[in-house]
C-alpha cells in the first residue's frame, strides 16, 4: 500500500530497480539516496510507520511491553546462549532493535561520535589480537569523511569540534546542546583529574535545521520516539524525502521470508508476507539488505538454495559471525543538590582521553565516558531500580529514598570496544520459531577477556570520576560475566577485500552475488568505541553513492 500521495505503487511482477529491505538508520538513507537519484525503489519494513504524533511518554508500553522493540508476546521470540555447547533459551530482546519505519534510529539516544582514523587501521597499527578476527578496514577515515559530513548536514547533528576529534571538512550544522547537570559534574571532575571533557555530538537538533524544529528538552529520548522530530532519525529525515521523490514505495508491515536467485546466480525477487499476512514476491533488478546485524544474516541463511547451500552470499562462512555488541559500564551517584537529569537529552559531554588504552596494560581496548541520567531518567525505571545504594526496595524508607534519588542522581557511563570473534554470532534457532514459522534468531555471545578487562578499566575510571565529582554515595555495574544482549548489532556480514574472509566488498556488494548489496551494522569490521549509528549512516551514504555510480555504468 503506497504511503504518500507522491508515492507510486509498483506492480510486484515487474522488476523495480531496487528493493531495500529495512528502513532504519541505513535503509532510510539508502531509500532516499536511490529514489532521489531517479531509481525505482520498494522499501519493505516489518513494522508500522509511526510518526511524531504517535509517540508518548509511555514507559509502561515502550520499556515493559515491547511497544517498539517487540518480543515473545508479539510473536518474535529470540534465543540466547553463551557458547555453542549450551542449549539456547528463549529471552526478550537479546538482539534489540525497534520494529518501525526508521528502525532503532527512532528510539535511540542519538549519540553521534564519528569513528577516528585509528578505528580503520588499528590491527596493523596496534597489532592483531590472537584468536580473534580483529582486522583493518578496506576503507580509511578519509574515504568516509565526506559521508560523515553528509550525515552531519543531511541528517542533522549538533556538536563542537573537540580536542580529540578527527579532522572534518565542514563544521557541525548545529551548536552543541546546552550542558546538563550530570555533565557539569562529569566535566568538573574530569578537569580535576587532568582529562579533557568536551561537548558530546548528538543526532538531536539544538536549533531548527532542514525544516525541523530544535529540541524542546522533554527528556524522553532514550527508548522513546521524538514527539517534535528534533531527533534526527531516518524516519524524520530521510523517509519523507524518499517518499517525496515520486520513486519510492514504502510497504510497512512486510516481513521478508527469503531472497530468490535465478539460474545465473543473480537475485530475482524478494519474497515477503504483507501486512495482511499474504505471501508476495517483488521482482527487482537489485536488492539492498539494510535489515540490521541480526535480521540481515537471518534473511541470508533463509535464502539458501542449491547454488548457495550455506545461505546466500555465504561462501566465506562469515555470515552471522563476528557479532560485536560494544561493552558498557554504568555508575550512578547521589548528589546533594537537584540534578534533574530526567530533563533534556541523554548526554551533553564526553571524555575521550581513554579512546586507545595503552597496549602495556596487557589487553586490547578503548572507549569513551559520558554523563547521563540514571536508568534512562524515567520515573518507573528509576523507582524499580531504587535500592541500588543498599536501601530497601519497599516500605516507608524506600518511599523516602525515591523522593531524593529521582532528582538527585547522575550517571557516568562507559562505552567500549568489542573484539570480533567467530564464536560470537547470529544463527537460526533449530527449535524456536516466530509467528511466521521462521526459525528464531539465536544469539551466541561471550565477551572476549580483553573486552571484559576494558570494561573493568572503564568502570574504575568512572569510580574515580564519581569520587572527584563529590558523590555522596555511588553504585554501579558492568557485565563482568559477559553480556546477554545488546542493541548494537555489528559485524555479522563484514566488509573486506578477501572473499574468503568477508561477505561484502568495499562498495557493499556481496562477493558472491553481483546484484545483492548489504549496508547496515553488519558491514562493520571493528566495533568502534560504542556509538556506531553515525558510522552506519555514513557507510550507507557511501554505499548508495557507489551503487548509484555502478548502476549508471550498467555494472549491476
Amino acid at each position, binding site marked *: 500500500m503506497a504511503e504518500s500521495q507522491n508515492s507510486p505503487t509498483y506492480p510486484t511482477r515487474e522488476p523495480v530497480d531496487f528493493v531495500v529491505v529495512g528502513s532504519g538508520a541505513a535503509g532510510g538513507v539508502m531509500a532516499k539516496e536511490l529514489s532521489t537519484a531517479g531509481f525505482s525503489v520498494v522499501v519493505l519494513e516489518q513494522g508500522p510507520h509511526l510518526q511524531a504524533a504517535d509517540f508518548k511518554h509511555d514507559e509502561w508500553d515502550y520499556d515493559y511491553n515491547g511497544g517498539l522493540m517487540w518480543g515473545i508476546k508479539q510473536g518474535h521470540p529470540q534465543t540466547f546462549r553463551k557458547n555453542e555447547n549450551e542449549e539456547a533459551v528463549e529471552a526478550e530482546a537479546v538482539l534489540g532493535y525497534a520494529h518501525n519505519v526508521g528502525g532503532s534510529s527512532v528510539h535511540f539516544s542519538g549519540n553521534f561520535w564519528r569513528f577516528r582514523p585509528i578505528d580503520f587501521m588499528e590491527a596493523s597499527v596496534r597489532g592483531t589480537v590472537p584468536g580473534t578476527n580483529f582486522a583493518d578496514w578496506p576503507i580509511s577515515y578519509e574515504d568516509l569523511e565526506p559521508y560523515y559530513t553528509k550525515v552531519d548536514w543531511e541528517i542533522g547533528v549538533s556538536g563542537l569540534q573537540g580536542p580529540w576529534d578527527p579532522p572534518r571538512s565542514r563544521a557541525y550544522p548545529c551548536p552543541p546542546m546546552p550542558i546538563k547537570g550530570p555533565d557539569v559534574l562529569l566535566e568538573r571532575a574530569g578537569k580535576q583529574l587532568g582529562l579533557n571533557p568536551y561537548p558530546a555530538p548528538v543526532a538531536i537538533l539544538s536549533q531548527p535545521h532542514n525544516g525541523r524544529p530544535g529540541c*524542546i528538552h522533554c527528556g524522553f529520548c532514550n527508548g522513546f520516539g521524538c514527539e517534535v522530530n528534533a531527533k534526527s532519525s531516518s524516519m524524520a529525515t530521510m523517509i519523507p524525502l524518499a517518499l517525496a521523490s515520486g520513486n519510492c514505495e514504502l510497504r510497512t508491515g512486510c516481513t521478508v521470508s527469503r531472497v530468490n536467485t535465478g539460474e545465473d546466480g543473480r537475485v530475482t525477487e524478494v519474497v515477503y508476507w504483507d501486512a495482511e499476512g499474504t505471501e508476495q514476491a517483488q521482482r527487482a533488478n537489485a536488492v539492498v539488505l539494510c535489515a540490521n546485524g541480526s535480521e540481515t544474516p537471518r534473511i541470508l541463511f533463509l535464502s539458501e538454495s542449491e547454488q548457495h547451500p550455506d545461505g546466500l552470499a555465504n561462501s566465506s562462512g562469515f555470515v552471522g559471525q563476528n557479532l560485536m555488541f560494544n561493552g558498557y559500564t554504568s555508575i550512578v551517584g547521589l548528589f546533594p543538590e537537584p540534578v534533574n537529569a*530526567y530533563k533534556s537529552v541523554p548526554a551533553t559531554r564526553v571524555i575521550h582521553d581513554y579512546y586507545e588504552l595503552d597496549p602495556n596494560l596487557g589487553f586490547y581496548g578503548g572507549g569513551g565516558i559520558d554523563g547521563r541520567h540514571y536508568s534512562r531518567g524515567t520515573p518507573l525505571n528509576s523507582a524499580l531500580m531504587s535500592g*541500588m545504594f543498599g536501601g530497601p526496595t519497599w516500605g516507608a524508607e524506600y518511599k523516602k529514598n525515591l523522593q531524593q534519588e529521582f532528582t538527585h542522581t547522575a550517571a557516568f557511563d562507559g562505552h567500549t570496544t568489542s573484539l570480533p570473534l567467530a564464536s560470537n554470532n547470529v544463527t537460526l534457532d533449530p527449535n524456536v520459531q516466530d509467528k511466521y514459522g521462521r526459525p528464531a534468531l539465536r544469539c551466541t555471545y561471550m565477551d572476549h577477556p580483553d573486552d571484559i578487562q576494558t570494561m573493568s578499566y572503564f568502570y574504575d575510571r568512572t569510580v574515580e570520576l564519581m569520587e572527584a565529582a563529590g558523590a555522596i554515595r555511588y553504585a554501579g*555495574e558492568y557485565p563482568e560475566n559477559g553480556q546477554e544482549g545488546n542493541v548494537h548489532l555489528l559485524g555479522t556480514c563484514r566488509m573486506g577485500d578477501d572473499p574468503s574472509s568477508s561477505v561484502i566488498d568495499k562498495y557493499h556488494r556481496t562477493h558472491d552475488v553481483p546484484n545483492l548489496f548489504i549496508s547496515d551494522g553488519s558491514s562493520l569490521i571493528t566495533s568502534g568505541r560504542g556509538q556506531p549509528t553515525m558510522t552506519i549512516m555514513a557507510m550507507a551514504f557511501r554505499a548508495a553513492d557507489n551503487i548509484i555510480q555502478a548502476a549508471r555504468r550498467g555494472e549491476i
Partner: protein
Amino acid sequence: MSKTEISRRAFLRSSGQAVKGSCIALTLPMILTACNRAEEARLRGEDFSSLTEEEAFEFDAISARIIPSDDSPGAREAGVIYFIDNVLANESEEVREVLRSGLRDLQSSAVSTFDVPYFYQLEEAQQDQLLLEIEESEFFGTVRFLVVAGMFSLPEYGGNKDEAGWNLIGFDDRHAWVPPFGFYDADHAAKGG
C-alpha cells in the same frame, strides 16, 4: 574501594529485581482494552474486572505496605489496585496462579502467626513482618513490580491517580523545558566550567 561505594552486587540485585523478580510480560493493546473496559465497568458501578473483592482488599493492603501512605499519598491513594486489576485482566493463567497461590500462602501465615484470616485485617507491623518473610519470593517480586509500575506509569493505565507517583518523586511531565534544568547547570552558567 571507598566507603561511599556500594557493592556492585547490591546494585545488580536491585537492577535484576526490577523485572526478573516478576513473571509479568504483556502486550499493550490488550492492557489498553482492559483499561477501557475497566473504566466502563467503574462507570456502571462495578469495581473490578479481574480481581475478586477479597483479592482487591488483599492486594490493596500489600500495595499500601510497599508504598505506604504518610505525609504524601501512597499506592492506595494512587489507585494502584486498579492498575493491577487492569493488567491481570489479560495476564496468563500461569501468572494469575502465582498471585493466587502466593496470596493463599500469605493468608495461611496470617492465620498461623496471628490467628487472623485475612492479610488486610492485620496491623501494619504484622503485615510488614509477613511480607519480610517472603521478600525473595516470585509472588512478592511480581506484586512489587505491579505496585511500582502502577504508581509510576501513565495514569491512563489505571494507577498514578492525579499523578500521585510522579508528584512524590518530583517528576513533572512537561513537554518542554528550558535550561537550566537543575542546580549544577545553573551553577555552571553562573560560574563556568
